[in-house]
């Protein structure tokens, strides 16, 4: 009896040891851990895969949402956090974090109006805000008809579809509405989730896309890649220069190129409602958060190596997935910040 028990004990012990050994980092190679925003997840995942093929370094990115990413990096359970909404310089300094932009994307209004195909409907900033405020409630409202001469608009009720979950996409979208409409700014405001004056909420980009496809007369907003992949009908938007533009990589780039990153403290820059003839008005960058004071030089170096690789070799991948890579001028600003601010025991880590 005793012998049997001893044997069992040994088996358990061996099993436990095996488990520990197999998960120890020394045998598995270097793994970088990151968590955060869902919006850039497809491109981060693709980069991680290619980078792993190139270098053997693994990247484990959990797309748990920007809020979760910020919480995890603050708790130091990950090597980097990712957020669609940038943190303000004061928040960064308080937490000792460095923030830099990684990719740019666009948020696109998508519609389901019987008889109206993609890129035909024109909306001005005021009209878009009034629709989301619930002040314009039918598609043949005078304000929409006036902007769209020649377009046959049905007498269908408008159903606004918004994100039910807190989201960086909502943060970018409400940033735009707050800039162009004082009424929006004072009633709903600018945040990752707001008190929507009207409409129904879908979970995730996919949820909003599904609702817009199912509900006749719906208008929602999704991240550009989702609009393309789900073949949703997008609308044109009037930008600050008064021109109606379509959402494309080119118009996102136009919006990004006019931005003055050098003057943005902690790279806090919101790319909505930018000047320029061709600028898409609802553009936003996605950000990475790392600690300025790193514990281990090698690990810090590995993390920065990865992002450096993305900046240098990741452009094609990003564009294939409908994201806009960062302009080279911004990349050199970012790497300058790495050199100056990321340190291990007072000594710079990069390059």
């Amino acid at each position, binding site marked *: *009896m005793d012998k049997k028990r001893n044997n069992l004990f040994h088996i358990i012990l061996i099993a436990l040891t095996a488990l520990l050994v197999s998960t120890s980092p020394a045998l598995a190679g270097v793994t970088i851990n990151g968590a955060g925003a869902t919006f850039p997840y497809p491109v981060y995942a693709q980069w991680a895969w290619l980078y792993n093929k190139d270098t053997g370094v693994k990247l484990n990115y959990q797309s748990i949402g920007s809020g*979760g990413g910020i919480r995890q990096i603050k708790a130091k359970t990950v090597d980097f956090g990712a957020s669609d909404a940038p943190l303000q310089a004061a928040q960064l300094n308080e937490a000792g974090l460095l923030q830099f932009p990684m990719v740019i994307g666009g948020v696109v209004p998508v519609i389901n109006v019987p008889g109206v195909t993609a890129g035909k409907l024109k909306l001005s900033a005021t009209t878009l805000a009034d629709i989301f405020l619930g002040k314009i409630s039918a598609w043949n409202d005078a304000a929409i008809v006036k902007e769209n001469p020649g377009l046959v608009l049905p007498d269908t009720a408008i159903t606004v579809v918004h994100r039910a*979950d807190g*989201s960086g996409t909502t943060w970018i979208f409400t940033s735009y509405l707050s800039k162009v409409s004082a009424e929006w700014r004072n009633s709903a405001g600018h945040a*990752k989730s707001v*008190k929507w004056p009207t409409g129904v909420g879908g*979970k995730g980009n996919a949820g909003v896309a599904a609702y817009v496809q*199912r509900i006749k007369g719906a208008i929602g907003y999704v991240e550009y890649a989702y609009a393309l992949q789900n073949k949703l009908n997008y609308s044109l938007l009037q930008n600050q220069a008064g021109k109606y533009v379509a959402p494309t990589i080119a118009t996102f780039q136009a919006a990004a190129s006019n931005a003055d990153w050098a003057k943005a403290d902690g790279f806090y820059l919101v790319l909505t409602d930018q000047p320029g003839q061709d600028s898409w008005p609802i553009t936003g960058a996605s950000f990475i958060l790392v600690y300025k004071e790193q514990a281990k030089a090698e690990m810090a170096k590995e993390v920065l190596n990865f992002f450096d690789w993305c900046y240098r070799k990741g452009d094609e991948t990003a564009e294939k997935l409908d994201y806009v890579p960062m302009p080279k001028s911004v990349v050199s600003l970012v790497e300058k910040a790495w050199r100056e601010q990321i340190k291990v025991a007072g000594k710079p880590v990069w390059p």
Partner: protein
Amino acid sequence: MQTKSHINFDPAFRWLTLAGGLAILFLVGSICYTLIIGAMPALKKFGIGFLFSQSWDPAFKEFGALSSVYGTLVSTAIGMLIAVPLSLVIALFLVELAPPAVSRLVGGAIELLAAIPSIIYGMWGLFVFAPFLADHVQPWLTSVAPGLPLFQGPPIGIGMLAAGIILALMVLPFITSVTRDVFQMVPEVVKESAYGMGSTTWEVTRKVTLPYGIQGVVGACFLGLGRAIGETMAVTFVIGNRHEISASLFAAGNSIASTLANEFTEASDDLYLAALIELGLVLFGITLVIQFIARWWLRRTARKLGAVR
């Protein structure tokens, strides 16, 4: 060996079971404690008003639970109103009327339904059921009951009604299969004697089977209720996720569980997070109250029907 097996294990066994029982109490206690600690900032800020405020405004940090509590209760009520009678009828059919082959087949199918993950119900609800509701059921309801505020508003499919019906479908298998087992335990002799005295099938069901199994049936209903009230994924998909109370069942609403599922990941602000945890606490409270009602009701029915047995 022979002598060893005669050692009295009773004390050890008693301690083991006692520890198990205490562990449950400890678990419930610590969940409650964690919820209260986590919700403290919101509890302090909003007080009892949290329960009566409809405002849910993360941008301006105003939080109230009323619409979520309302949505939880209404969607569950719709679900139970549909599921309970339907389950009873199905269970009675399976036990009393169906030929054994049919009974086995349908019984198996129902158990299969119970094993479907809730996200499947949610996706089916969103992609198949909600459009059907929007195109066929909702316009019909509005035309049948014009002026009834319950059935007004644009027919968009998703909303409180869709959530209630999906919940009904989800709890139906649970209630049905437990109820069926309960009815099957009614002794044949009792039923046969009732038939022997010239009772019809309806009379046997009404006067013998139902009273005999009523306690089990009530228990089954509360099991279903427990599932419905905390159901998260399926409801999130079809309820429409709107923080507002509307008289119409066509309108979008929300439930406590759906709000938590939607907003927890991005709640980086402390007060926002606390408000969400307080919502969890409220759900905990609601479940507790329902448990007490269930106990009280079971005891009451047991006493009332004591004479019948």
